[in-house]
Every structure is written in structure tokens, then in C-alpha cells.
């Protein structure tokens, strides 16, 4: 009869097996978040009794749907291992609980982590933009934004055991590895020749800069991937693109126009001067703006790879999320941004 059970019942049974001391466990306040393009996200509360006392805890479950945006480049196991490695580190992250590979449980790999209390205003929505603009005026959240990023870049990633992510060699190896990763996704996804993208890829390979230092890099550090509570970053989330690499890769993402849709504030939240000064102060690094401009172009290539992958998955019938279909129109728009950045 297990096959007939609803997802909620299956998850409840699973938690009961993992929490033997929990009596009368029930799950409530379910939200099936539409946010994830790579994974299904279920958020809920567990309510139970333990040693005669009532208990309540929020959980977040991420499940591999089998045909997510990043295809095989996104690994739930890696995300779980990253969160485990970060657990004792001074980096705001959700506490990871359990990872399961067995598809017989929920139909695919999944992991369960703490639901961190707070909000994630959507930076692309009007309400979200207003929320971030108001927080910018209050002044506490922008500083917290920079502090959380600095906590990543100041982390001793070898001591934290994060070298399983792969350590680039010296010189230009980091950007070349990133290009190779996204070029692979493009080759898997593209349904027609893309000469503008070919020019972009070849330019990126020919002009790859040397990384001055390696750090633990989130890969998509922006509002929307940060849980906010009491005007502070309560947790950095969306651990799908992290790498050991050039910290300027994250800095470029923050500086990028890609993440602020016309707002004068970086990530719709932080004054540019504040970000630059405070980041340099906290990390001791000097921002290399030329390198950042290069990485900004690399992000345009990466975004193109995402949209090609998304529209390809929809076209192949492997993913029925209609948001993926419209991304086919975003490809030339991002390529236009890249072409303009390269001067044509």
C-alpha cells in the first residue's frame, strides 16, 4: 500500500523512522515552494511529544525531480555534504539532518534540513524590491549581506573539508573549469547552432584571468538566495553552484547588473560604495574590477546555458514547468548583454 500514500504521509513516516524518541509526530503548515527550478522544495513543521513535553520544529525537504535546470550538474548529495561541512563554521546556513539516495522512499534522492525562520522576499517582484529598498534605508541588512559573503570567503575551506568540491590548479584553471562545466551543459541542451554563444565561449577561454587566491565561493550570492530575519542574513541558501574558486567570482555576481533589474542598489539592497569598502575591510582582499568584468561576462554565458537547458528540458517533454518554456526567449536577450559587454 506504500505506493498509494501521499507524499506528506511518506515524509511523515520517514521522519518517524529518523526520530524514534518523537511521540505522536504530526506534520503541519505545508508549503510546496515553487521557487526551485532544480529541486522540489517542501517546507513544513513537525509537532510531537518528547519526554512528555510538546515539541515543534520547522523542516525543509529538497527532492531531486529528475529533470531539473542543471541536469546532472546539480547533486543533492553534494549540497548535503556542503551543509554538513559548514555546520560548525561561522557561516549562516541551515542545519542539515538526513540525506536519502533510495528512490523507493519518495521517487528520487532527497535531503531534510532545518527550516530557518525568516523571509526570502522575491527580488524580482515589486513587493520584494520595496522590502529590500526599505531595509537598505534602515542600514542593518546591507551590512549583514556583506558580512555573510565575507564569512564564506574568509573560511578555511581545507580545514572545513570542502576540498571534495575539487580544487582548481594554479593560474587560469578556475575560470577554465567553470567555462568547461557550462559548455558541457550547453552542448547537452542546445537545439541549434549558436554562433554568438560560440564567440562568447571562445573569448572567455582566450581571456581567462588568473585567480589571485582560492576561496569557498557560493556561485549565486544575491538576494533571493538569502533568508532574512530581523534585518540580518539568517541563512545562505540555494547551495547548487558552489565551488572552490576565485572570490572575485562571487564579488562579480554582486556587482552585476544581472541581479538588480534597474535598481541602483547591488542585489537591490546594498550601496555599491558600502559593498566595496566593507567587503575589502572584512576580507583584506582588493577587488579587481577588471577581473570582475570578465566574470560578469562569464555569468552571461552561464545564464545562457541555464536558459538553453531549461527550454531544452521543456521541449524534450522532460519537464512540464511552463516557466521553462519562456526561457527560450531569454537566450538572445542575455547574449545581447554579453555582445554589448564585448563591444558588438
Amino acid at each position, binding site marked *: 500500500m506504500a505506493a498509494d500514500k501521499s507524499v506528506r504521509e511518506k515524509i511523515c513516516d520517514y521522519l518517524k523512522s529518523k526520530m524514534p524518541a518523537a511521540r505522536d509526530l504530526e506534520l503541519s503548515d505545508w508549503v510546496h515552494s515553487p521557487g526551485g527550478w532544480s529541486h522540489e522544495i517542501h517546507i513544513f513543521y513537525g509537532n510531537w511529544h518528547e519526554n512528555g513535553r510538546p515539541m515543534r520544529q520547522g523542516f525543509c525537504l529538497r527532492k531531486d525531480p529528475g529533470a531539473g535546470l542543471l541536469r546532472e550538474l546539480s547533486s543533492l548529495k553534494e549540497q548535503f555534504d556542503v551543509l554538513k561541512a559548514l555546520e560548525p563554521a561561522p557561516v549562516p546556513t541551515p542545519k542539515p539532518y538526513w540525506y536519502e539516495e533510495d528512490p523507493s522512499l519518495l521517487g528520487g534522492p532527497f535531503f531534510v534540513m532545518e527550516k530557518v525562520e525568516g523571509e526570502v522576499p522575491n527580488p524580482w517582484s515589486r513587493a520584494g524590491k520595496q522590502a529590500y529598498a526599505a531595509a537598505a534605508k534602515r542600514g542593518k541588512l546591507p551590512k549583514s549581506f556583506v558580512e555573510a559573503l565575507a564569512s564564506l570567503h574568509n573560511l578555511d575551506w581545507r580545514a572545513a573539508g570542502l576540498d571534495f568540491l575539487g580544487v582548481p590548479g594554479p593560474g587560469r584553471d578556475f575560470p577554465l573549469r567553470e567555462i568547461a562545466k557550462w559548455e558541457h551543459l550547453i552542448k547537452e541542451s542546445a537545439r*541549434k*547552432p*549558436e*554562433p*554568438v554563444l*560560440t*564567440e562568447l565561449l*571562445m*573569448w572567455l*577561454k*582566450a581571456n581567462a584571468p588568473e585567480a589571485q587566491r582560492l576561496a569557498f565561493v557560493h556561485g549565486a550570492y544575491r538576494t533571493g538566495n538569502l533568508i532574512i530575519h530581523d534585518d540580518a542574513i539568517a541563512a545562505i541558501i540555494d547551495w547548487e553552484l558552489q565551488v572552490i574558486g576565485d572570490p572575485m567570482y562571487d564579488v562579480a555576481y554582486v556587482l552585476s547588473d544581472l541581479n538588480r533589474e534597474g535598481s541602483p542598489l547591488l542585489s537591490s539592497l546594498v550601496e555599491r560604495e558600502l559593498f566595496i569598502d566593507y567587503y575589502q575591510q572584512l576580507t583584506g582582499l582588493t577587488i579587481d574590477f577588471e577581473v570582475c568584468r570578465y566574470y560578469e561576462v562569464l555569468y552571461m554565458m552561464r545564464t545562457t546555458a541555464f536558459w538553453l537547458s531549461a527550454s531544452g528540458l*521543456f*521541449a524534450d*517533454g522532460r519537464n*512540464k514547468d*511552463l516557466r521553462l*518554456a519562456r526561457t*527560450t*526567449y*531569454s*537566450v*538572445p*536577450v542575455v*547574449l*545581447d548583454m554579453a*555582445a554589448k559587454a*564585448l*563591444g*558588438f
Partner: protein
Amino acid sequence: MAAVVLEFVARQVDERSDITDDKQAALHALFHDLLRLPEAKIIAVPDEETEAALCELIERMYQNREVMGQEAFMAVNRRVRRALRQLLDQELKVAGKAED
């Protein structure tokens, strides 16, 4: 449902013959110019005037960058980029973002 939407969209794109024609004209002009550009001799301009052939040409251009020398590379790259701009402008018409 998804397949129906996609087929509709694909048909819309397919039926924009003006775009196909303008892209073909841009490719024809590019390959025609490159055949006459002395700096482009080393990268073997293909007979086929397609976007796939252009992708291969761009790859060869960068692979032969050092042999060509900076000046020759820049001359060929400039002409290629002009064609890429024209192709992109056509794609942007489909995306509804063309700067007319």
C-alpha cells in the same frame, strides 16, 4: 499541454521567414567578405553558409589566433562580430526585444 504550447511557439518562429532571409543574407555577406579578406586565408572559409559553419569558423579563428597575429585576428574578428550582431538582431525580433 506543454507540447501544444511549444509547437505553437515553434510555428511562430518558423513562420518568420523575413528573419530567416535576413540571417541568410548576413551569413552570405560574411562568407563572401572573408573569402576576399587576406587575413582570413589561414582559417579556411567554408563553402557552406550556415550558422553551424560559422561556429566552426569562429573556433578555428581563435585556435589560430597566434599564427594569424593580433592584427589579422582583430580584422577577421571585427568582420565576424559585425555578422554576429546582425544575426543577434534577428533573434531579438523573435524575443520581442529588437532595438528598431
